[in-house]
């Protein structure tokens, strides 16, 4: 079975999401290891920022209310 066109673009887009996630994870680490005391609000915000691309682009949560054709 031959792959349908459009796959390559979706696969490349995955790397963009991965890049964002890696930056968020490393930033979290740097914030957590450099800010002593009171880092938790920043970490909470970064965790939400890290979770969102996974939910949106990898898990396609919006397909729940906007089913794709």
């Amino acid at each position, binding site marked *: 079975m031959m792959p349908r066109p459009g796959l390559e673009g*979706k696969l490349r887009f995955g790397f963009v999401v991965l890049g964002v996630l890696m930056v968020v994870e490393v930033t979290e*680490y740097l914030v957590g290891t450099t800010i002593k005391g009171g880092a938790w609000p920043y970490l909470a915000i970064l965790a939400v920022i890290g979770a969102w691309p996974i939910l949106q682009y990898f898990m396609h949560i919006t397909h729940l209310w906007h089913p794709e054709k």
Partner: protein
Amino acid sequence: MAAVTVTHKEDRLALHRLGLWLFILSESFLFAALLTTRFYLQGVQRPPEVNQPLGLAISLILVLSSLTAYRGEMAAIYGDYRRFRRNILFTLGLGSLFLIGVGFEWSEAFRSFPPSTGFGTIFFTLTGFHAFHVLTGLLALLVVLLPGQKGRLASGNSWGVEAVVKYWHFVDVAWVFIFPTLYLVS
């Protein structure tokens, strides 16, 4: 009483997805409860022996496995079986590497903050609960690699792959919150 039969393929898929998301929602409540327990028991205190670089390393491994899982799912949807198989195998490898990392962390943690301590209780419970989810995710990924999958994908039925990969991503999302909660907050 009239029986309701869902006949359209799109409607069935929508129902499957809704069911899976409800399952994921119920799982996320469990993780949320454990995450809040950490703050209830320990506040923002954390023993200095927690291996933060290892925590970052296994986080990056899990994030990378989400990419390979996504690529596998896309390949399945687009009918590229070889690429699907290769990416799911990569995901299996990365997930196993993550579990090895957690095992190594546990061996250190048993010496530094055993389960009998306050932080140890929540650390082992949370990482153990999550590692169990990773393990079940790995088993589910193995199932989608079974020989019959090729025929299903060829006929345009990739729901099984989508469901397993969504579950795998959920395990990653859970870790995105667990990592700062256990390794970084202080």
